[in-house]
């Protein structure tokens, strides 16, 4: 057991390149560490692009599996983070296309999935009027994001819900940074207008 723990610590300290090489050779611990480092990002992308919980679970798992199976195809071209996000975005697109769905984000955040960001705000802020205003603005943000054209929605999601930089977004979507800026500008403009309507 102590040996296993020591081995886990060693794997956790490896550089990404070393982990990739080890995972390519079939090292399960290295593959596990790779997924561990990027799982939250993959979850955020899928959770904010897909409307159904069961789709989120299926697509996150499929992203993990596909990334591991296609490691040889990655071969160090760009960052692994952008690559795995690209896989996740493509699988989300496939899922939406198959279901012929437009993304839908519920106006009220479900409580059962974890701590609600607005509840955290309520815990910090004693001003109920302010909290109500933020809650309304959040609903408008979700509604506006849902109404964005697909590419703008993807760019906005990767920037603000997955915290990726412009270059990482460009790499993940396979477009140049200028295209990302254009889509992001348009998306931010629409969403900001809705926020300022609710929170003048």
């Amino acid at each position: 057991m102590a040996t296993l723990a020591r081995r886990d610590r060693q794997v956790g300290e490896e550089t990404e390149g070393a982990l990739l090489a080890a995972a390519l050779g079939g090292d399960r611990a290295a593959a596990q560490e790779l997924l561990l480092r990027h799982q939250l990002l993959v979850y955020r992308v899928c959770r904010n692009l897909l409307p159904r919980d069961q789709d989120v679970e299926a697509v996150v798992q499929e992203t993990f599996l596909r990334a591991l199976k296609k490691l040889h195809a990655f071969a160090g071209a760009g960052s692994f983070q952008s690559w795995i996000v690209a896989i996740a975005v493509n699988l989300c697109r496939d899922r939406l296309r198959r279901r012929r769905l437009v993304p839908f984000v519920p106006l009220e955040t479900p409580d059962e999935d974890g701590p609600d960001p607005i509840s955290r705000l309520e815990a910090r802020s004693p001003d109920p009027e302010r909290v109500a205003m933020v809650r309304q603005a959040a609903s408008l943000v979700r509604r506006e994001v849902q109404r964005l054209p697909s590419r703008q929605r993807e760019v906005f999601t990767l920037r603000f819900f997955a915290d990726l930089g412009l270059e990482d977004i460009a790499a993940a979507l396979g477009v140049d940074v200028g295209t990302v800026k254009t889509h992001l500008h348009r998306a931010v403009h629409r969403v900001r207008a809705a926020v300022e309507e609710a929170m003048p």
Partner: protein
Amino acid sequence: MSERHLTDEELDRWLSGEELDQEVAEHAATCLLCWHRRANFLGAVAAARAPEPEAATLERWRETALERWSGGSAPRHRWWLAAAAVLFLVALLPVVAHLRAPRADLDAETVVQEVDTLLASDPLTALAPEELLETVVPAGGNATGGGVS
């Protein structure tokens, strides 16, 4: 420092994470109104984010994927490959057996003699089936009679 507040365009660029012109950036860094607009947007977007998952949920999904990657699918694929190979070999057996069966060599002399014998006894039957000959030249009729009159 400029007293002019950020335009919508400049604010959108700021929110998108792009660099601003120096003068605009200096204003944005100190202007409460511009900071307020930015904070309102970012606060609303943060509140709109989907909730984070339980650590156990992600762990379960990760382990399932790892299981499928490291052990689940590969042996099954090999089993199907082996089964397909066996079926292919079984289907191939009759063909191989037929190819390997000994074939008697034809003796050209014998064949020529048989043909000569046949032609000598009844040259017409060597050229056409007996039924056809029976129709054209009936056995009981005059074979040399000159045909239909």
